[in-house]
């Protein structure tokens, strides 16, 4: 479905991704793990169009997206749940969700968008009671649910998730990852970026390990859990939490 080929992304002279290649098959749940500064978030920003690509290709179902502007990528089926959520704070929960379906405003019947809205509110019932509330007044976990819901409203074929558990209580993080797991079981393709390797390797079926802008290992998540390299990368990090 998605093939990233020799992707290079630079901030000025500093290369954050130095020729990264990876693939995601339809319906897969793929993880990207690695320490801070490994280029995980950069990858998602480049895939979603927020960062320009210096070299390489991003091929989604045969089309190179590298030059497609960010606002056109969502209609190609790519949606992102960004790090830090980036919900529209001064707008209501409902308005945030409506904007998630913005690119479908001319193509989807209203009833279909409304049905999707119901689906999101069923997935995250806590949002239902808060649909008129401003997004800025939600708790961190609720904002994360809103960010996921907003992305789902675009009916993505590929969902990019950047540290959805960051800064959340374990119970809340588990609830969100559980919901994502159910969506994946229904056929949604997901790319999960996580600093918390244990969490990511449990949720996904296949993973890539990033270090300093390169893929240093990849394979089934179950195997990677036993891979000494992963342990080495994370040595001393266990239990310290993400920061």
């Amino acid at each position, binding site marked *: 479905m998605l093939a990233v080929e020799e992707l290079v992304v630079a901030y000025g002279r500093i290369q954050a991704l130095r020729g990264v290649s990876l693939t995601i098959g339809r319906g897969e749940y793929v993880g990207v793990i690695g320490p801070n500064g490994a280029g995980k978030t950069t990858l998602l920003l480049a895939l*979603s*169009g*927020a960062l320009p690509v210096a070299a390489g290709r991003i091929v989604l179902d045969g089309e190179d997206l590298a030059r497609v*502007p*960010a*606002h*056109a990528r*969502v*209609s190609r089926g790519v*949606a*992102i749940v*960004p790090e830090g959520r*980036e*919900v*529209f*704070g*001064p*707008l209501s929960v409902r*308005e945030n969700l*409506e*904007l*998630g379906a*913005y*690119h479908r*405003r001319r193509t989807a019947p209203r009833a279909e968008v409304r049905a999707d809205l119901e689906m999101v509110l069923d997935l995250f019932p806590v949002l239902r009671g808060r649909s008129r509330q401003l997004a*800025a007044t939600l708790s961190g976990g609720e904002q994360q649910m809103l960010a996921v819901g*907003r992305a789902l409203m*675009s009916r993505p074929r590929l969902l990019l998730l950047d540290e959805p558990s960051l800064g959340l209580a374990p119970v809340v993080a588990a609830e969100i990852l559980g919901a994502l797991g159910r969506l994946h079981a229904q056929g949604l393709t997901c790319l999960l970026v996580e600093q918390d390797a244990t969490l990511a390797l449990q949720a996904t079926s296949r993973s890539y390990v990033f270090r300093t802008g390169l893929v240093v290992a990849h394979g089934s998540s179950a195997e990677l859990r036993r891979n000494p390299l992963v342990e080495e990368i994370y040595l001393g990090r266990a239990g310290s939490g993400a920061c």
Partner: protein
Amino acid sequence: MLSLLPLLVVNGVVFGAIYGLNAVGFSVMYNATNIINFAQGEFLMLGGMLTLLFYGDGRVPLPVAAAGAVLATTLIGLLIERAAIRPLWRRRAKDWTYIFMLFAVATVVPNAVMLAISRDAATFPAFSGTRPLALGPVTVAPQAFWVLGLTAVVALGLYGFFTHTLTGKAMKAIAVNRRAAAWMGIPVERMVALSFALSAGLGALAGVVVTPLITTQFNIGLPFTLKGFAAAVIGGLGNIGGAIVGGLILGVLEALSSAFVSSMYGDAVTYGILLVILLVRPSGLFRPLVELTEEEI
């Protein structure tokens, strides 16, 4: 002197409505871009001056000339966005860069109008004649009703636009977080252009309805910019209803202070009172439509 009070208030309300319309222009652009448009008054000036140009003492029917002027000003707004704003936007310039750029525009445009159209003050006929209508104790020029009617229609229309249409909400989303708005599929640059077109068109409309009450000239833009900005800030920058209320407060204060204090110190008294309002309520009387939380700034 007190017997003049009703007349002064009515006059203040009429001019306040014009300030309010201009303030709405500020708010529309601010809602979409967080840019303070220091050329807003120039759109008002262009609306009046271009109508004069097209009207040419009756060669073209006034409504046609006015519609042409609003359209032309809208196109000029789009041109300014394309030539002066978009290059900055693409390079993620700091907010103050836009202010400076628009200030430059506000200097160039009046000079161009002076050279290309006229340096003289002029006006065109009121829309529905000049026979005053009695309204209780005061008589009011029929043009005043055009001003008030247009203000009401614009305010209601824009309120509906920002609160009930997806396009209006998308505009607000851009002001809050440009990157996230693009992720939603919102074409950010096209929306910014739309906000310039809207602001320019609104400014031109204000210029068209106010010109028969005053005279217009190439250099009236700046005072209207300052008053429109003041009205927008008092009302809560970005809040459409607040912009109108801010304009009305400013207009009435101005009318009363120039009559009861002195026309010389009128502005000083007006802005003095506005200062006090802002000291008490720094973010304006009403909640801005797009209120950025500290985290987003």
